[in-house]
């Protein structure tokens, strides 16, 4: 989130799309209810009328996989009706930048496309620069190659008629959404966009988020209370997991991992030169990378050995979930560790993922219960144990209240938790498991001269002398030290690239600045102003609660409005002051160079309406999902031209002839993810005990299905059985004059626990987003029939 949960109460309009917080993030409604009491509006856009829709002032349906047309049309509406915040756009975005000649967009393809590799040459999307490297601008925004004009042209194709013919949204509903949300372009108003997996789990997932950000920038809604673009994370600590580099192509703190395929990455010097921009806050990247290497390799990281840079693995492949399971299926992997993950229920094309596990020599599952995954070889999984040679180890894990540590929530707050009760039996915290494994492997490799063992031996693993690691030492390593004095470092501003500082994760540096001051443990619930609660826990970076809050003030440093004030320039004190920690150098005055550039992480200090960084284009463009019942109305490019397509057995593709119905998956309040925790709780299993599929009354009638009937749902990948839940809350869409049906189902169920049922992911395709490889769970084709 750019903002935070409590801040939702300040919004004038919450556009909730690709998410159903009333059911899946219920506590958000504590704040959204307050927003409503303050006169704020809620807009719910969802393929199905949900409990969030029931709480909304405006509801509009859309067919799964059509977010870009939906928001693209809103951008067009805001531009055509002059509802944008012009001064904000002109000063705080790259709208005025001139794109180099040669950039083109034609029939769904941007310039620089190579059909054979399905990739773009992004240098074809460059900004024109002056001799000293500064972007060429046209402050009037009228130059035909200005970002503003190119954007306007691009989205002029997204007119209301075309958009609603693609999304299937009734025109009057669509206009009501446009009108209600675009009203937040006014100074003194702020709108927020709330999203979740309904947005990201598409082959255009990253661009879905991008286009939300573009709309918010045009309306001047970023950096303001009640504004922002806010991802509601689906797990209590999934924010923490991405912050700490659990994504395959990240080190910690969103530092990209080096790759064997990039020649410059062969040396630390080359890597840093290639990946460090000259201007903007990322120009400090070498300090963060070297400090990270010092945290990991300690004394074994010296100036002479590139601070241990060569110990880092430099992969030459895409190591995403989808590709790993594909490799596993082909027998390329020997073993795997699965910590609290259940791909036999949660993975895309889960039936095939289950088969892939059987190709492993060994599998270590660390979990609270035996899950469908650690039991994949059993008869109830549909497997023949005699044919499976995988050796499975199940290590019992401690639950969150049985261990100490922190979780980072969607608000970026790192909140410390203490152990409430002892673990049962032999269960142990994940951290202990990893600690003991590391110590044993280090012992095993002692004296080895093999180059593969060197990185492991070089690891600085000093978390106390006992079997259990001293978690306080882990916290301190994350914060980092001044290695010259041995004292904790005050924050990332003090990190250096000469090997004299360390920090395990630069964005968290500063949460533990002094002995005895672990800010994640703070619990002062006094409102320090505008519900930012600055003394409650620690929000990365630097305890800032609203990111880009410099943008809440105009270029001269005055808040755009009294209502939405965060920080302002105090000329007497020569300081930025306000109710939040400035997301800006607090001593840089508005008139100094860069003093009016709020987007400090970007090279030019402005946000990017035109972003030459993503794999699939500088502007979000609509492509249909991998499986779709209709041709793309916007171009002849049916599927995102930059996605990786895995061919063959693992990813069979269905066509509308055999599978005419659009399907999506979602969660219910009572179950969590693959259900391995909640389906083992009797009170939750009682409340949501049956696998069901929601379908419209119209589709039920066509198929001769009655409410509560058992039905078969089939896709090109498999078929499952479930109860029919016939509902008024799904309606067929009118897509370009044709009737298109959509159904939806929860993906929580499996064969273990109290509440059992067939697994929805037996149906889902094995394809992912062009940038992140997140699977396209949210839009695929299927068919249904009565089971008997």
């Amino acid at each position, binding site marked *: 989130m750019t903002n935070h949960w409590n801040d939702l109460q300040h919004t004038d309009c919450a556009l909730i799309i690709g998410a159903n917080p009333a059911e899946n993030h219920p506590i958000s409604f504590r704040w959204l209810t307050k927003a409503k009491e303050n006169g704020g509006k809620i807009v719910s856009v969802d393929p199905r009328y949900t*409990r969030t829709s*029931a709480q909304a002032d405006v509801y509009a349906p859309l067919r799964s996989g059509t977010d870009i047309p939906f928001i693209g049309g809103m951008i067009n509406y805001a531009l055509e009706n002059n509802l944008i915040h012009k001064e904000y756009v002109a000063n705080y975005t790259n709208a005025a930048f001139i794109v180099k000649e040669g950039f083109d967009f034609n029939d769904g393809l941007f310039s620089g496309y190579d059909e054979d590799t399905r990739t773009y040459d992004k240098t074809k999307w460059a900004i024109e620069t002056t001799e000293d490297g500064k972007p060429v601008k046209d402050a009037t925004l009228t130059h035909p190659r200005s970002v503003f004009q190119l954007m306007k042209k691009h989205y002029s194709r997204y007119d209301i008629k075309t958009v609603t013919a693609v999304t299937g949204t009734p025109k009057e509903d669509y206009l009501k959404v446009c009108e209600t949300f675009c009203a937040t372009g006014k100074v003194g108003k702020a709108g927020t966009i709330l999203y979740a997996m309904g947005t990201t789990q598409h082959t255009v997932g990253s661009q879905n988020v991008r286009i939300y950000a573009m709309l918010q920038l045009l309306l001047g809604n970023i950096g303001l209370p009640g504004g922002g673009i806010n991802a509601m994370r689906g797990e209590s600590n999934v924010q923490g997991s991405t912050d700490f580099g659990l994504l395959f192509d990240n080190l910690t703190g969103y530092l990209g991992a080096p790759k064997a395929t990039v020649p410059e990455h062969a040396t630390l010097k080359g890597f840093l030169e290639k990946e460090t921009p000259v201007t903007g806050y990322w120009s400090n990247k070498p300090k963060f990378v070297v400090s990270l290497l010092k945290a990991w390799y300690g004394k074994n990281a010296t100036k002479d050995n590139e601070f241990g840079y060569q110990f880092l693995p430099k992969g030459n492949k895409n190591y995403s979930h989808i590709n790993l399971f594909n490799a596993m299926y082909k027998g390329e992997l020997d073993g795997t560790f699965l910590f609290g993950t259940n791909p036999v229920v949660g993975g895309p094309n889960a039936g095939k993922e289950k088969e892939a596990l059987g190709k492993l020599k060994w599998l270590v599952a660390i979990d609270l219960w035996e899950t469908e995954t650690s039991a994949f070889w059993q008869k109830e999984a549909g497997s023949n144990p005699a044919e499976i040679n995988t050796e499975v180890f199940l290590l019992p894990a401690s639950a969150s209240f049985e261990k100490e540590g922190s979780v980072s929530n969607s608000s970026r707050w790192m909140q410390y938790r203490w152990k409430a009760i002892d673990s049962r039996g032999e269960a142990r915290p994940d951290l202990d498991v990893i600690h003991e494994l590391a110590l044993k492997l280090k012992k095993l490799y002692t004296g080895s001269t093999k180059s593969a063992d060197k990185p492991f031996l070089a690891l600085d693993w000093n978390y106390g002398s006992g079997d259990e690691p001293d978690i306080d030492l882990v916290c301190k390593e994350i914060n980092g030290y001044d290695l010259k004095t041995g004292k904790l470092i005050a924050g990332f501003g003090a990190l250096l690239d000469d090997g004299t500082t360390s920090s395990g994760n630069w964005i968290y540096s500063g949460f533990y600045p002094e002995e005895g001051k672990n800010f994640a443990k703070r619990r002062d619930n006094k409102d320090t102003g505008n519900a930012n609660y600055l003394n409650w826990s620690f929000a990365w970076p630097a305890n800032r609660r609203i990111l880009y809050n410099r943008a809440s003030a105009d270029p001269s440093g005055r808040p755009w409005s009294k209502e939405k004030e965060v920080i302002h320039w105090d000329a007497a004190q020569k300081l930025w002051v306000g109710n939040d920690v400035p997301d800006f150098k607090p001593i840089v005055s508005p008139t100094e160079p860069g003093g009016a550039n709020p987007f400090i992480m970007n090279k030019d200090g402005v946000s990017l309406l035109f972003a030459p960084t993503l794999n699939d284009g500088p502007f979000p463009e609509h492509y249909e999902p991998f499986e779709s019942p209709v041709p793309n109305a916007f171009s002849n490019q049916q599927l995102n031209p930059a996605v990786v397509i895995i061919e063959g057995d693992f990813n069979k593709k269905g066509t509308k002839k055999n599978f005419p119905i659009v399907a999506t998956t979602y969660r219910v309040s009572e179950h969590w993810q693959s259900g391995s925790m909640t389906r083992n709780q009797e009170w939750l299993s009682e409340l949501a005990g049956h696998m069901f599929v929601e379908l419209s009354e119209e589709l039920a009638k066509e198929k001769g299905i009655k409410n509560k009937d058992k039905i078969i749902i089939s896709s090109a990948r498999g078929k499952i059985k479930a109860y029919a839940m016939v509902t008024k809350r799904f309606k067929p869409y009118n897509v370009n004059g044709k009737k298109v049906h959509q159904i939806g189902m929860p993906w929580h169920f499996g064969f273990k626990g*109290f509440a059992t049922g067939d697994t929805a992911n037996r149906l889902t395709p094995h394809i992912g987003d062009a940038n992140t490889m997140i699977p396209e769970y949210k839009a695929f084709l299927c068919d249904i029939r009565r089971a008997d």
Partner: protein
Amino acid sequence: MTKYVKYVDVTKCDGCRACMVACKNWNDLPAEPTEFLGSVQSHVKTTADTWNVLQYIEHENGKGDLEYLFRHSSCFHCTDAACEKVCPENAISYTKYGSVVIDQDKCVGCGYCVQNCPFEVISLKEYKDKNGKEYRKAHKCTMCTDRIDEGLQPACVTTCHTGAMEFGNREVMIQKAEKRVKEIQGRYPNAMVYNPEGVGGTHTVYVLAEKPSVYGLPENPKVPTSAVAWKDYAQPIGKMMLGATTMALVGAFVTNKLFNKEGKGLDENGGGSDE
């Protein structure tokens, strides 16, 4: 003594069902797996082991718009409680807070309360003693009277995160409900306070978005005159003359014949879509 009211504003409810889990947790009630009901709703209605049930209703209003309505349903704690009046064992009583509770030691499981509750929130549970002999006890929401005794609020209220439920002084809560109805009538023209006079008012007071019948609630619930006659006249005289056991049989006759109660007040479909 202050009379309390559990205030339920159904228009603020998001149907999360934390109230159901909190109730089972505090009252130590077992899970009660049910058949699939064709909607998100888990139980048709309250039972002896499930003292509150979240109703989910798909309702097309007068304008043809779809409303997705939710209601936390449990005991109303009537001021004139039919259950209290018909109980031959005086097992049911009013507490000083206004809640209506069943004394499990006195309950003989005759079921008159079950049959006479205008809201159908009381149920019998079957038990077996160590000799294998079957017996029954009536159960329902206690308004967490044991928590109120300790200065706490009912578990469902404490856990509610949207402010759909509050607990407090009866007059204050009723005023709040009346004010809230005015606020929401723009969106819900049929919105009303449900605090029926026929039972002397209740200690669970609702702000409903729609007419009571949409939620399967009686529009004008009353304590049946026969129940009044039973409690206030027949029972005291009968007890003097016949003794308790015979009187229970007479009670069954009274309940079945005189009250002539066969129709079901609550929607048996358990919410969900029309079939």
